[in-house]
């Protein structure tokens, strides 16, 4: 009889047990602190300036940027590629680490997913900002041509966004129920949100089964989709003839870079969140150590693709291709190029190979540098190629021979980054950073294994 009850309880899932008080105290969303408020206001100011810049762009047209007929794509597009790259991390932590049964990923999953959702949201928004006629956005859905790589990008981004939202929401369901049941003192609208989105979660076994099955299916589905999203984005460049873009290597090159940049982004955000919400018990030094090793692996893979991408054409030095490479290696873009490769790639790899490099504070600094390097790397992919067309640029004003983004471009780009961080902050204001029910499951599993 007893064992039957035990098995029945086991099948019933964790919710049948009371949530331990310490988990509730540590993990439930907390009140807004002073530093939190300052950070939010700071982000809102940046978003406001960007909004003002965007209004001036809507009024006068894209002439307020420094993009002209030759450099017709600029930091809006490189920012778009950056956001798509970062968003791959959702699939990395939620799916890849899940299917490979990596245990330590549990506290990081939600952080990774919200980064992914925020990034992909702003990827879509920054693309609308880059359009010459944004009010015609609906043309994509009414007149869309299936032969265009942009249409493929629209389809995969929409699909990836949907699946990421589901992968964020479904594992959140049990926690939403806990919030609904325990946060009785919260504001009325918050309580309504918890109740509505918890979907009448009652911790029944069948409900748990649906959640676990769904997560597994989505984890499998999101991996090819994550590979597609950045491969298709890379095809925006690789399907053209331009020197530096006409490469068969672009798909894997971009995907490898995306995993690396996303991993670094997760580490950086995790560190800040851990310190701010006091989660040292749940996100330990060991987590940073593991993530550091993962980041080294991904960086080495990306280094490999970089070598392929630059050494092979550099060996041949075709005319236009060679001119573009010279600009990168020794010309106008040399400082940016070598900073990105050395500071953004080589040094992080070396530092992270040491155990002390993978301690929280050093790895946080390294990750921030890697993310900044990743942003500038995308700029290095977009601009030098456009400045080296097959027919050399002639008979245009001097400024058309260079690309120096205007304050509006910087403001709008910064606003998009601030906006992504803002979404992340809002999310963590409302929902637990670390998954409560999964932490409980892990504890149960540990005590079980200790009993045996």
């Amino acid at each position, binding site marked *: 009889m007893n064992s039957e009850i035990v098995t029945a309880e086991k099948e019933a899932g964790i919710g049948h047990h009371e949530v331990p008080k310490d988990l509730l105290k540590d993990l439930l969303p907390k009140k807004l602190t002073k530093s939190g408020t300052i950070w939010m206001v700071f982000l809102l100011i940046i978003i406001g300036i960007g909004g003002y810049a965007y209004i001036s762009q809507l009024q006068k047209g894209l002439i307020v940027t420094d993009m002209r007929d030759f450099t017709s794509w600029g930091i809006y597009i490189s920012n778009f590629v950056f956001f798509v790259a970062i968003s791959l991390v959702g699939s990395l932590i939620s799916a890849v680490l899940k299917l490979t049964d990596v245990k330590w990923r549990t506290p990081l999953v939600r952080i990774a997913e919200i980064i992914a959702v925020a990034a992909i949201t702003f990827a879509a928004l920054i693309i609308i900002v880059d359009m010459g006629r944004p009010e015609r956005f609906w043309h994509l859905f009414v007149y869309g*041509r299936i032969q265009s790589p942009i249409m493929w990008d629209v389809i995969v981004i929409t699909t990836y966004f949907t699946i990421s939202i589901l992968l964020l929401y479904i594992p959140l369901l049990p926690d939403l129920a806990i919030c609904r049941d325990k946060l009785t003192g919260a504001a009325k609208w918050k309580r309504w949100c918890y109740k509505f989105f918890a979907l009448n979660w009652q911790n029944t076994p069948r409900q748990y089964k649906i959640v676990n099955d769904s997560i597994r299916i989505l984890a499998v589905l999101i991996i090819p989709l994550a590979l597609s999203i950045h491969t298709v984005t890379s095809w925006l460049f690789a399907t053209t003839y331009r020197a530096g873009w006409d490469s068969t290597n672009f798909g894997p090159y971009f995907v490898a870079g995306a995993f690396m940049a996303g991993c670094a982004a997760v580490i950086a955000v995790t560190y800040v969140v851990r310190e701010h919400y006091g989660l040292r018990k749940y996100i330990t030094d060991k987590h940073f150590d593991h993530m550091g090793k993962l980041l080294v692996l991904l960086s080495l893979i990306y280094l490999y693709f970089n070598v392929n991408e630059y050494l092979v054409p550099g060996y041949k030095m075709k005319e236009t291709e060679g001119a573009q490479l010279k600009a990168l290696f020794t010309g106008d873009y040399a400082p940016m190029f070598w900073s990105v490769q050395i500071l953004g790639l080589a040094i992080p790899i070396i530092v992270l190979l040491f155990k002390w490099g993978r301690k929280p504070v050093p790895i946080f600094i390294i990750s921030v540098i890697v993310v900044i390097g990743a942003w500038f790397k995308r700029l290095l992919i977009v601009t030098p190629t456009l400045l080296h067309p097959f027919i050399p640029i002639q008979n245009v004003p001097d400024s058309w021979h260079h690309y120096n983004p205007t304050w509006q471009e910087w403001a709008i780009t910064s606003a998009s980054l601030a906006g992504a961080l803002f979404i992340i902050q809002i999310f963590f204001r409302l929902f637990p950073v670390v998954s409560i029910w999964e932490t409980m499951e892990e504890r149960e599993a540990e005590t079980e294994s200790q009993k045996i």
Partner: protein
Amino acid sequence: MKHKIKYIFLVLMAVISFGIQTTYAADDDKAKAEVKYTDATLKLSFDTTGGKHIIATVMAKDPSGAVVPVKDVTVVIQIKKSFGMLPVEGDNMATDESGTVTVNFPKELPGDKEGNVTVYSKVDADAKVGDLETQSIVKWGIPAEIENTLNKRALWAARANAPISLVIAVNLMIALVWGTIIFIAFKLLTINRLGKNEKTIKSKV
């Protein structure tokens, strides 16, 4: 003195006779030039012996009323095309004794769908016959094969004409992935329903 007069007389006679000759010669030429041609016609004909030839013939009525060929008239032969007149040159573009000019038809020249080609000929302000022009259609052109690219399936075609393989591949992938997403979305509704049932069970207990 007498010799001098003789010489002067001889020279004078020479001059006068020369003058008379030239006057008569001019009269002769004038007479010739004054042969008025009327009702001049320019006709095109086509000959296939030993290759394709275009023959332009200038005929006119001489003063006696007989229709005779006119010699030494420069004839221009062109083929009428949309943006200009394609000149057809031959060895001699001036009419011979039979009043004809013969040129070779250009090799491998396309015509319209049936192979028709419009040959145009003119005489420009000729002293004898003035302005003449004529044109004629001959089926010597290579029939034009016009490919209508509007209905071809291609990557650069309109969206209705995308390559079939692309259409199938993309739609299949969308159907599979979104089918799964919708399936899972329905499962979420199941969670909701299960929860409602559980709540009623609990409240009954």
